[in-house]
């Protein structure tokens, strides 16, 4: 799996991401500066990492979403290429129009930095095939604007088309108001595009991939991507 990790000013999770990708695939990820107009040849996966691109000025992800490299990402996604956006990366993908909706301020206005539980809603996608449907995983979140909102019709479509892949839940898998950490519509933590090749999620699977991190539940996402691409090749 050849991955390209985008780097914007103010991003700070790109090295965690590159480390997780290397661990899962054995290949060093290419770091791609935002001013580039093309992705490295043979890129299998584009990752938009977390952080605070442009200091969250204007709106989270708004300025990064208009960077030159995003045109190349749009082309890549248009051809069915796999794109993963985590945290600020999710916000950037929404602002870029690659995913519907928007990430609003957390309903309780607090920046949330802790481990949360997620329910994997299905296992038949490149982004979830490393898990079982219904599996509960524990991964960290660190965001102030993770409250996913979209108009009613869009949320209905996301649900109807099975495009919600990750949902906030309790340790035993209960999805309710108390486990919905940021007030997101339908407890949405991660969604895919209509074609299923672009995933945006607020939690950080890349931060739970090694024993030293205290948990390896995030590995499945990366292992699944590697398995998907190996099968496709």
């Amino acid at each position, binding site marked *: 799996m050849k991955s390209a990790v985008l780097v914007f000013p103010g991003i700070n999770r790109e090295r965690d991401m590159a480390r997780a990708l290397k661990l899962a695939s054995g290949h060093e990820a290419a770091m791609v500066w935002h001013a580039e107009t093309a992705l490295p040849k043979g890129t299998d996966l584009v990752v938009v990492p977390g952080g605070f691109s442009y200091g969250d000025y*204007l709106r989270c992800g*708004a*300025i990064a979403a208009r960077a030159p490299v995003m045109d190349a990402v749009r082309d890549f996604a248009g051809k069915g290429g796999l794109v993963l956006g985590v945290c600020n990366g999710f916000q950037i993908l929404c*602002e870029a129009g690659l995913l519907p909706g928007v990430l*609003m301020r957390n309903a*309780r*206005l607090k920046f949330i930095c802790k481990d949360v539980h997620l329910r994997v809603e299905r296992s038949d996608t490149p982004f979830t095939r490393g898990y079982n449907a219904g599996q509960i995983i524990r991964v960290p979140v660190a965001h102030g604007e993770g409250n996913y*909102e*979209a108009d009613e019709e869009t949320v209905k479509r996301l649900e109807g088309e099975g495009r919600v892949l990750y949902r906030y839940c309790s340790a035993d898998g209960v999805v309710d108001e108390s486990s919905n950490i940021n007030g997101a519509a339908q407890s949405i933590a991660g969604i895919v595009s209509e074609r299923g090749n672009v995933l945006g999620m607020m939690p950080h699977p890349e931060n739970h991939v090694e024993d030293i991190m205290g948990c390896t539940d995030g590995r499945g996402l990366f292992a699944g991507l590697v398995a998907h691409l190996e099968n496709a090749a």
Partner: protein
Amino acid sequence: MKARVTVTLKSGILDPQGKAIEGALKSLGVDGVASVRQGKVFDIELSGSDKAKAEAALKDAADKLLANTVIENYRVELL
């Protein structure tokens, strides 16, 4: 030429920051505050003098960057 673009949240969009400000105003004892919605103001200087062109450019700016039209409305004014 000076212009102002005002960006506001669409009605029905939850505005937790506005709510917090509303609460603070009430606890300060400011009378008669029914509700608060927070928005953004951009004061922009334009180099040309053609008003129609300026308005078109500002709309372009708002659509492309200043507002997220999924959740926000905007108003363009030439001052």
